[in-house]
Structure formats: structure tokens, C-alpha cells
């Protein structure tokens, strides 16, 4: 089942219109495995394989398969990679149905979906990662526990070295390296999955156990790597046959790389618990520089014009950034942008007929008092000019309601004018209260329509204004 996507890739490639493919000049299966090989080989290291890494590697292999058609190499490489990404089905998972025969009477059909390669967005741009299924393919379909495979291969390698079967030992060492890389890649994927979603892996039982086993395994392997290296090195020092020396050198290289993989794996294992704990906890502007005065034409423009584009950009962009002042980076928000794009266009407002507002005939204050009332109130308040008079005395006369109200309000305004109330200050009340002084008498008005402390009203004579003395 795991190899079917590659068969499908080969079938689909026949429709790609590439002459070399139609003529069978490219081993597409070998290229597919090589692509997985490159991807798995980079997993677990600081930088995974980019699209270009894989396409370049495939193009080089294509060149060896069909040296006369360089224009076809990138096309074949694209075809293979797109096939592994299931591009024909929009990058969806490969899905197969298989018959589960665990029940002796019936067959139960179950879907099985998997990817071989997938693209991830990273700090290096898009990179490729291999699924467990791809890693299994990479290991030549060995459906084995990677740790067991690594240990078994180490044992075989030891025997071959002891028996001085160096050719076989070189092959085994290569296989051992691949197994270690596979183990490292699997662990890298598990830790990445944990960073994304802590619940995606079983950190209660399964993973701690796997980590413990893996740590023990790696510690053993690092010790054995050293022992093997010493053993082969010893053989290199004593062996005189050039062929054996060459193979031994190969084995030393392979073992050195395998040891590096094991050391890298150990580093990951040591930090694995921290990754889990951190993931568990989680799942819940440029310094001003003074531009010195420049002769822009002579010091900037002329030298920049002589530079290649890339180097010129390094000068012009920072210069433009500063010269143009502060620019706020604008970020999109999906819904808001769609709403703005789809907002109904602003229609011009229809011209409305001028409103026929009913304006008062004159500037009569609707809150004001008729002139006769004001005149009557002034007459009442004129009594104050003759001497101190209580408000209650003024109101005791049988006054019309409006006149009594205006007298009372004027007295109150004289007692406590509102400095912020310019409207009242210019009104009838303000006019009548001008020059009046009101102080409480201590008595209380209880009769008539007004209630409250009585006020003693006086109109003090204005003090003579002293003559201004001449300035000295």
C-alpha cells in the first residue's frame, strides 16, 4: 500500500508530456525514493530540506539517467515531487481501503489515509517533511521498530568487522546510519507535534517510555560508535591492502556521521521533557541615528548608481525609510478586508429641498417676560433703593404671579448668581438683579407660592472711583 503512491506517480507521469519519461529513460521509482531520502536525511537537523534542495538533488540524478536532455531534468524532478505531494488530488492524503480480516467470518473495510511528503512553512521558507510512512519506505519497507533495527544493525556490523568482511560492513554501516537518521526524524516529528499540540502524543505512558528506551539506546550506541571507530581505525593502521583501506575509510566516514546523528539525537532527548513541559504550560521598534549632512548627489546618488542592484538596495531602502519618515506597517484581517472590499459604494445624497423653517417674527425670547411684567417688577424692586427691604415684604404686596416670580428670581440671582450662566446674566432677571445685594435674614418665607429662607435686599451706592495717580 505504501508503495502504491509511487506506482500512481509513475502512471500519472506518462501524461506529463515529457519525452524522456515516455521513452522510459528516467527511473521514476528510484527518483521518488531519492526524494524521500533527501527529505528524511535532513529531518532532525537544524534545517529541513527545502523544495529547491530536493529538486536540485533529483535534477542531478536525472542528469545521470538521461544526460542528453537537460531541459527535461527540472520537469521530471517537479513531476516526481508533485506526485509525492499528491498534487493530482490537490495535496490531499493518499487514501486506500483495506479489508480487515480479524473477524473470521467477515471482512470489514477500513479506510487508510496517509501522506508521504508534506510542506511546512518555517523560518527558512517552505520545507518538506516526511511522514512515518515515508520513513518506512525510506527504510526499504522494513516494518520494524527503528530502535531494534539500529541495535540489530550494530550487532551485524560488529560481526562483519570482526570477520573482516569490510564490504558487507560498509553496507551495514550505511544502513545503520539511515536507521539512525530515521529514528532521529521520527523523534523530531514527535517533538514538533508536541509543540503544536500537547495532546497529539501520549505523554502519560507511551512517550516517556519511548524516550527512556531511546535515551538508553542512544547512550549505548554512542559508546559503540566509538568502539567501532577505534576498531576500524586500528584496521586502517595495520591493514596494507589498498581495497580494504578504502572500504575501511568509507566505514569510518559512515560511522562518524552516524555518531553525529546519535549525538544530535541525544541532545534532542535531553531536551524532550522540557519541550513537553513548556508546551503544556503554554497551551493554556530602530535606534535613532543622526544623519550627518551629506552632499546627496556626490556622496550618495553617484556611488549608488554605480553599484549592482542588490548592493544599491541596501543603501536606498534604509535611506528611503528614514527620509520618508515613520510608516506604520499595515496588516490585514480577513473579515475586515472583505467587508471593506464589499462595502456598498457611497451614493451621492439626493439634493433635499431647503427646509422651510418657521422663524420667529422677531428675536423675542420665548423664556422672557412681557415688558409690562419687567416694568412692574422694576417698580417693586425700586423700593430697595429707599433702604434695606426683605424679599418677604416685597412679595407681601398683592403682586401678579409673573411679577412676583420675576422679583423672587431677581433676588435669588442677586444672592447666588451663576457665573457660568451668561444667558441669565443678560436676561430680564440679570438686568433687574444688577446692583442688588441679597443676604439671608434668618427668617423663612412660608406664605404664598414661594418657600425658603428670606433675603434682605439692599442696593449699595457705588463707591466713588479714586482718581488714578500719575505714574511716577
Amino acid at each position: 500500500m505504501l508503495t502504491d503512491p509511487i506506482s500512481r506517480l509513475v502512471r500519472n507521469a506518462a501524461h506529463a508530456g515529457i519525452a524522456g519519461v515516455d521513452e522510459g529513460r528516467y527511473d521514476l521509482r528510484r527518483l521518488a525514493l531519492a526524494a524521500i531520502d533527501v527529505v528524511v536525511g535532513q529531518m532532525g537537523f537544524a534545517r529541513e530540506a527545502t523544495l529547491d534542495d530536493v529538486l536540485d538533488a533529483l535534477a542531478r540524478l536525472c542528469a545521470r539517467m538521461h544526460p542528453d536532455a537537460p531541459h527535461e531534468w527540472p520537469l521530471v524532478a517537479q513531476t516526481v515531487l508533485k506526485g509525492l505531494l499528491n498534487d493530482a488530488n490537490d495535496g490531499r492524503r493518499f487514501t486506500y481501503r483495506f479489508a480487515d480480516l480479524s473477524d473470521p467470518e467477515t471482512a470489514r473495510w477500513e479506510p487508510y489515509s496517509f501522506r508521504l511528503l508534506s510542506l511546512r512553512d518555517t523560518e527558512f521558507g517552505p520545507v518538506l517533511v516526511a511522514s512515518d510512512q515515508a520513513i518506512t519506505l525510506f527504510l526499504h519497507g522494513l516494518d520494524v521498530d527503528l530502535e531494534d533495527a539500529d541495535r540489530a544493525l550494530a550487532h551485524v556490523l560488529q560481526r562483519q568487522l570482526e570477520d573482516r568482511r569490510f564490504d558487507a560492513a560498509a553496507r551495514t554501516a550505511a544502513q545503520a546510519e539511515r536507521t539512525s537518521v530515521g529514528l532521529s526524524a521520527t523523534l523530531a516529528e514527535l517533538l514538533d507535534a508536541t509543540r503544536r499540540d500537547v495532546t497529539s502524543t501520549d505523554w502519560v505512558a507511551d512517550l516517556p517510555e519511548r524516550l527512556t528506551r531511546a535515551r538508553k539506546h542512544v547512550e549505548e550506541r554512542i559508546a559503540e560508535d566509538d568502539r567501532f571507530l577505534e576498531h576500524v581505525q586500528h584496521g586502517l593502521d595495520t591493514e596494507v591492502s589498498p581495497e580494504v583501506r578504502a572500504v575501511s575509510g568509507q566505514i569510518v566516514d559512515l560511522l562518524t556521521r552516524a555518531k553525529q546523528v546519535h549525538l544530535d539525537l541525544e541532545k534532542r532527548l535531553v531536551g524532550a521533557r522540557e519541550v513537553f513541559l513548556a508546551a503544556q504550560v503554554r497551551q493554556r521598534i530602530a535606534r535613532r541615528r543622526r544623519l550627518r549632512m551629506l552632499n546627496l548627489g556626490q556622496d550618495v546618488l553617484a556611488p549608488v548608481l554605480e553599484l549592482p542592484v542588490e548592493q544599491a538596495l541596501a543603501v536606498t531602502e534604509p535611506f528611503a525609510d528614514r527620509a520618508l519618515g515613520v510608516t506604520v506597517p499595515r496588516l490585514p484581517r480577513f473579515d475586515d478586508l472583505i467587508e471593506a472590499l464589499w462595502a456598498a459604494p457611497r451614493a451621492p445624497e439626493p439634493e433635499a429641498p431647503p427646509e422651510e423653517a418657521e422663524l420667529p417674527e422677531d428675536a423675542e425670547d420665548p423664556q422672557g417676560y412681557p415688558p409690562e411684567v419687567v416694568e412692574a417688577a422694576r417698580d417693586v424692586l425700586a423700593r430697595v433703593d429707599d433702604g434695606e427691604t426683605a424679599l418677604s415684604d416685597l412679595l407681601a404686596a398683592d403682586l401678579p404671579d409673573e411679577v412676583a416670580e420675576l422679583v423672587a428670581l431677581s433676588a435669588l440671582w442677586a444672592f447666588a448668581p451663576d457665573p457660568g450662566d451668561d444667558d441669565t446674566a443678560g436676561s430680564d432677571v440679570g438686568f433687574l438683579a444688577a446692583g442688588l445685594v441679597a443676604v439671608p435674614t434668618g427668617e423663612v418665607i412660608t406664605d404664598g407660592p414661594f418657600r425658603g429662607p428670606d433675603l434682605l435686599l439692599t442696593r449699595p451706592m457705588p463707591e466713588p472711583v479714586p482718581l488714578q495717580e500719575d505714574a511716577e
Partner: protein
Amino acid sequence: MTAVAADLTDVRAAAELLQFGLSRRVRPVEGSEYRKLLDRYRDELRFKDVVDTMAEGLGLEVLGTPRAGIVLAPEPGGPFATRLGDLRAMDQHEKLIFGLVLVGIAAYAYPNDVDFDDPETRLVEVTAIEEFLRTAVAKADLSEAEERARAAAELYADLPALVLTSTGRRARGCTLRAIEEVLAWLVSQGAAREATSLGPDTFHLTDHFRLLVADSAGTTALDALRAVRRETAAEAS
């Protein structure tokens, strides 16, 4: 939120992380300051709170921290929010098509809710998006959709897929050019990348775009197009 005093060095570091997030050129490569701050955001709850609080004050929201870097989204009307004036000058029809293509790309790439949690980047091709949109505007039930969405769909159906300029390039006024322009805009926003090694019209939709669409409350039009995408995918398999 309870009042908790924040260390000033943390505040500075939080501001620096937001600065990195606002810059589309910086990448959190191993060993860089950006990477260290990104790891702190992921691992230290207290630092995350400082960053989130500072972002909120600036009118920003942290949508996620995928490997490619912190993804920020603006509060509507905030100083960082994209305005129509930030896009190229467009007439009413062009705005309708721009919006529809944007919705179409989102529906094409993420037909199922589960897709929003899948870190795998999507490869899209201009021609594939065009084919999908042409099918979608014909099949989608937009009766419940926004009036402007229906207008956009009708307009899209009327437009030719391809009109060539005298130099053989796609001319304005055809849908392929509109899709090309939206994808180019997404590239400028860090929401897509050109994948020229896989073909001239091929683009990767980044985690940034995935998080932007996932953050969306969704429109009736988006839902309708996603339904068509699911149907076409089911028919194909």
C-alpha cells in the same frame, strides 16, 4: 486581568518581538534574537501575557506563533489595520472581484475546519483557483449570502478567464489576472510565497494565511464556497 507588575526588560523584549512580527523581512532563524523571543513567548506564560497585553494596547492581536514567526492581526480601525487605500486603486467592480478571489482562495485551500489546524502549507495554482471559482460561482448557493457577494459572483461569471495584452501577458479585466494580483498581494503580506520551482503560477499559502482565515468569523459566501470545494473534492476522490 489582575494588575501584575511587569519587568521593564520583559516589556522591552515584548516590544521587540512585536517589532519583529510587524516586519515582514525578519525570520526567526536558529540563534537569532527573534527566535529566542519567539521561544520565550511559547514557553513563558508570564512573557506571553506581557506580549499579548502590549499587542492589545497597540491595537494588535497575536493569532499564533508558527515556525515562520509570530502572526499579528490588527484591531479594526486600529493604526495597523489595512485600509482600502493601502491596496492599489480599484473601481467598484475590481473591489468585488478582489474580495471574491480572496474568499475563493481561502475556500479552495481550507474547505474543512480541520484544515485550519493542519500545519501543512497549501500549494495553489492560478489556473486551479480560476477553475474552482468558475465552478463555485455557478454551483454555490449564494441565496443567503451578502448582496455584494452575489454581485461579485455574477460579475465573476461574466468576466472572461483570459485576455492577453499585446505582449502576451494577462491583461486587466480577466479573472486569471485578478487571481494573479490577489496572490501577489498575499505574497507582499507574507501570507503566500511564490513557488516558482514548482511552476510559474504556483504559490504556497503560508501559516500566516491559514491563521488569518482561521481567525475569520466567516461569511456566508465563504461557507458556500467551502461547501462547493468539499463537494468537488468528494466527487474527485
